[in-house]
């Protein structure tokens, strides 16, 4: 079982990294880009079998540690 966590900056937070990547893409000729948001991707390998317990515990870890709710949002998937 594997957990996939995507952490992105909140919309209200200025994301200078995203802006720099967007500018670079535009300079390279990639048009039609409205915005770029740079975040983090975590893969966590799990050895339990109970998906719901894993989801609950990782959701707590995301909130407490893996993301900072002041500046970031996260999406958690378990597969």
């Amino acid at each position: 079982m594997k957990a996939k966590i995507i952490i992105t900056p909140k919309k209200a937070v200025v994301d200078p990294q995203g802006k720099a990547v967007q500018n670079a893409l535009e300079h390279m000729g990639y048009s039609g880009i409205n915005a770029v948001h740079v975040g983090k991707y975590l893969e966590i390998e799990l050895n339990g079998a109970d998906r719901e317990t894993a989801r609950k515990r990782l959701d707590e870890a995301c909130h407490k540690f893996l993301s900072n709710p002041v500046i970031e949002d996260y999406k958690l998937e378990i597969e």
Partner: protein
Amino acid sequence: MNFAVLQFPASNCDQDAVHALRDVLGHSARYLWHKETSLGDADAVIAPGGFSYGDYLRCGAIARFSPVMQAVQQFAADGGLVLGICNGFQVLCEAGLLSGALIRNRSLQFRCEHVYLKTLTTDSPFTNRIPEGKLLKIPIAHGEGCYFADDETLNKLKANNQILWQYCNANGEVTEQANPNGSLWNIAGICNERRNVAGLMPHPERACEAILGSADGRLIFESLIHALKSKTMPKAA
């Protein structure tokens, strides 16, 4: 006074802080390794600058769960004085001891230079010795010092006089140009509602002697010492 200066793996301003407190100001200061669970007889705690735990995940995110921080949480809850400098400020925000967060500088540049700070209130243990209208010339050195908080938090900080320092120019004007990192409202440092925990991105410990270009940082430590002397502050357990 007895100061405890925290040491996390990759703290790098711990020695500067101990030097300023011990050699310049003549107080007792000792290092406290992150695995310690007790603050000993500390009167105040300094969380120094650096790149604790390599800044992995987020600045301060891992340090905040270290054993010593659990003792700092308790010390702060008992009313003890805690000052976070640069990475220490980031750790205190991550720990929830201070509101908001520090994010990547808007310019994406690591900024290393002297800045001017305007002190907004002398009503705190960290600012009480700063003369009215005195601008502090203090160096910064950070890549992630852009202060962010939502509007509700910012308004609360303002209403409670928790904004201690703002970046300004040499004339004391709080301008966009004087803002080195894009911090909201030019915020350089804040305190908590109870006023016993504060954090700032600039480095007062690097500005305590004229030979370093400024001794203005002393005023912040002298404020702390004055507060400790004038009140019975709780000692660490």
